[in-house]
């Protein structure tokens, strides 16, 4: 435009009004993209997005696996809704699976059989849906573990940790709801147990189950209600919270592992366009492809083998999907004597704490962890560099203790299968796991912390004395010595960059007049926790120490390693 009216002096007045002169070296934005930008002004945002830098590390792909398998589950889930009938109305099966012909079953089970046998490719879609759901929950959990052990939940990412915690809980509930829909014998037994859990709630239990089941168990309401929760309510929440989760990742910029050139003030990696579009986009296809390959050859949840739900029979080895295993295991470990009666009312404390309380309690503890740690450390800074787990020994030990606790419950859910496959007594296995529930986590905590401290000492050793080369020298006087090769500055940096905070100290418990400060008790607890976290510490070596180690032998080394 400007060229057409170039000669008019009045144009000078409008100079700077708008930028309508594209620099000659770049192509003008035209076509559909131009049309869109005219209406949204999105070009600026897109170019910022395209230049965004992401750091590279295999462990950052765990969250991606979760994201992609969720998308795969959403896609295949939409397909399944075309054929699945969420109805408990009894019908007589006349499909092509011969062993069940003539059997009365719910319409939900009949349509699930049809998807498996009478709709071409239907079984594949069902299998992909189930496998992607399982992989989704695994990936969410493993991603969470990664974030925990590297301290990626620290400021400013606490909100995202909480959102992720909610996502993982929703993922498990979504899985349970979906697993219950086909109304086969196994999933019906799961709902039956759920009915028992709800009934165990003090005071309101029987009312709750009648409300949730729309009357007596099983009724005809639970399948449509679970369906609505499974395809509408939870997916909407999942997508909304997941979107916020991703937006916050963009806003915060991704964390990075420590390394040469990486600081708390930068992010080193590759730009979104083209590298990460290719890598992340390609990874979606890899995840989808692998799920499809698994679904092609490994059958999951063969509902036709279980038969329709009937409250009277039950299959031996009844197990929920893996992510509900820990809850089922908790139920198996609870001793029966916890149930008692007062004034004619029953307290089912053998069921209620391990079912209705367990999930909310567990996820609350996970969700608040960043805030507890921030309070203990008193650290108000932003953290964009990840911790190597060994450099945060107490946190790592807490994490491993939590995992051991979780695994104890998880394996308890398989106590019957272990008993059969290993030829052991189920009573012994159960009692062993009951003991493990109390003994396992503290032992795991102690061992992990020791390993972390040892690894830190090994790092020190490596920095101060170099890498062992395996080459032996013989001195002229006959003495033998192994050659140690000093680390270069880049390799060394990874081992010396971290901080080792000392425990917070209580300044004085009384003020100058000898009156106990009202703050003191709370702060005393804080100081005690801080001592628990940071009492044992191994400081990274300093240049002086390295210097000293190079000259002669490091007598003062023991001083540096000492813990207060």
């Amino acid at each position, binding site marked *: 435009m400007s060229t057409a009216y170039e000669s008019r002096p009045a144009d000078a007045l409008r100079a700077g009004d708008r930028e309508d002169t594209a620099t000659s070296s770049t192509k003008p934005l035209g076509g559909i993209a131009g049309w869109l930008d005219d209406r949204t002004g999105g070009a600026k945002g897109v170019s910022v997005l395209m230049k965004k830098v992401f750091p590279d590390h295999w462990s950052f792909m765990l969250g991606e696996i979760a994201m992609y398998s969720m998308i795969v589950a959403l896609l295949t889930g939409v397909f399944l809704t075309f054929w699945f009938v969420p109805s408990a109305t009894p019908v007589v099966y006349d499909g092509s699976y011969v062993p069940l012909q003539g059997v009365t079953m719910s319409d939900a089970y009949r349509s699930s059989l049809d998807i498996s046998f009478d709709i071409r490719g239907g079984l594949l879609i069902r299998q992909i849906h189930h496998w992607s759901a399982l992989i989704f929950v695994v990936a969410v959990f493993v991603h969470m573990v990664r974030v925990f052990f590297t301290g990626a939940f620290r400021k400013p990412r606490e909100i995202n940790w909480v959102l992720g915690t909610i996502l993982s809980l929703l993922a498990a509930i979504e899985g349970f709801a979906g697993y219950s829909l086909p109304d086969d014998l196994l999933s019906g037994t799961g709902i039956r147990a759920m009915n*028992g859990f709800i009934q165990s709630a003090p005071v309101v239990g029987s*009312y709750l189950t009648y409300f949730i089941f729309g009357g007596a168990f099983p009724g005809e309401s639970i399948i449509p209600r679970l369906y609505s929760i499974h395809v509408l309510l939870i997916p909407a929440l999942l997508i909304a919270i997941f979107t916020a989760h991703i937006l916050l990742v963009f806003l915060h910029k991704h964390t990075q592992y420590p390394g040469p050139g990486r600081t708390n003030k930068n992010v080193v*990696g590759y730009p979104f366009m083209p590298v990460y579009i290719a890598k992340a986009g390609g990874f979606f296809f890899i995840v989808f492809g692998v799920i499809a390959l698994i679904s092609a050859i490994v059958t999951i949840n063969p509902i036709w083998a279980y038969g329709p739900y009937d409250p009277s029979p039950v299959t031996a080895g009844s197990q929920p999907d893996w992510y509900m295993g820990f809850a089922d295991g908790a139920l198996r470990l609870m001793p029966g004597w916890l149930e008692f009666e007062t004034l004619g009312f029953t307290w089912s404390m053998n069921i209620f704490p391990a079912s209705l309380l367990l999930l909310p309690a567990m996820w609350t503890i996970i969700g608040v962890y960043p805030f507890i740690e921030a309070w203990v450390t008193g650290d108000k800074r932003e953290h964009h560099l990840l911790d190597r787990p060994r450099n945060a020994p107490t946190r790592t030990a807490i994490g491993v203790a939590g995992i051991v606790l979780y695994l104890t419950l998880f394996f308890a859910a398989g106590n019957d299968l272990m008993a059969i496959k290993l030829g052991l007594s189920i009573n012994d296995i159960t009692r062993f796991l009951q003991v493990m529930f109390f003994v396992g986590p503290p032992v795991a905590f102690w061992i992990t912390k020791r390993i972390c401290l040892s690894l830190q000492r090994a790092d020190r050793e490596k920095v101060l004395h170099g890498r062992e080369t395996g080459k032996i020298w013989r001195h002229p006087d006959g003495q033998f010595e192994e050659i140690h090769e000093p680390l270069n500055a880049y390799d060394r940096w990874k081992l010396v960059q971290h901080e080792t905070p000392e425990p917070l100290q209580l300044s004085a418990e009384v003020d100058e007049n000898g009156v106990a400060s009202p703050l003191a008790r709370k702060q005393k607890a804080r100081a005690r926790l801080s001592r628990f976290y940071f009492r044992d510490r191994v400081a990274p070596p300093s*240049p002086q120490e390295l210097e000293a180690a190079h000259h002669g032998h490091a007598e003062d080394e023991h001083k540096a390693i000492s813990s207060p």
Partner: protein
Amino acid sequence: MNANDRPAGEELQPVSPAAEAGQVATHTAVVADRFENPGLPPHVHRASDTDPRAAKRAERQVATMFGLSMLATLVFLVGYFAIPDDATFFFPGIGQVSALNVALGLSLGFSLLLIGLGVVHWAKTLMPDEEVVEERHEMRSTDADRGAAVQVVADGGTAAHLDRRPLLKYSLGGALGLFALPFVLQVAGSLGPLPKDELSRTIWDPEENDSKPIRLMRDPEMTPIKLEDVTLGSVFHVMPETLQHYIDQNHGVLEAKSKAAVILIRLDPDKIKVQKAKDWGVDGVVAYSKICTHVGCAVGLYEQQTHHLLCPCHQSTFDLTDDCNVIFGPAKRPLPQLKITVDDAGYLVAPEGFNEAVGPSFWERG
């Protein structure tokens, strides 16, 4: 000064520099003698950056993967039409499998996987691999921006008369606090009926059969059972004859079954340790509720030698010789016994129904 203004590598500073009494503080760290970040290491070029032949080879590899992906897609399309529904074949290591499912799954899987592998290989060999550094900025807004935000909100509140007319504020608060109640009431009130005493009743209750004794029927054949049919050590899964009524109407069958399931076993009468258990049975034939008193699974596993009943869900174990008391597992209460006798025609009947609620515990079961 903001907490983030400090250099990244600095030691933790005191929480409150002038620690008051009762406050905690870290030791005031001497700015430690630390190593310097050496900066990014020199870049090492890939073969495809320096050798045109390596780049060409990478290009061919990527294109081959895309080509194979297209081929796999074609296999899917052909397989969808060509493979019959009931075709099966032997897959090594897996067993007999549906040909259609395996063919569609493998072709779909490879068509997707090869796109992914191709693109990633492309990114790793031909796209730029020099690391880019982007600066981070603190998340916190500047003090000026924060002040401005407070100002805008405060001004808006004032402009809306919030501080001058508290009546508006409180009445709005009340209305907003209450408006959700109708929705909560509607859904909570209409979800289901009240349980009344239904959890304590089963279709074994004599009023279900005009106060006549109810015959024990085989499940699912619904045929009556004679005393002599129950031989020593045999197990019968039993439903009441009143269930037939629900089956005929095709309504409420599962609801009735979920409380009425009973297991019938003949023991050597001398082995029964509890007199009441003996009295409520006939010649060592005893009937117990099959619904676990833990969370309600069917207690379906009978160990013939030890006379234990085991629940397959959570392994509660009940001792048949001891009136089905719990000897292991998370259940607390014994399985309720159903009193049985023999009617004039020689069939087993239950004259009274259960005298307590069957199945999992609930608050008011009493």
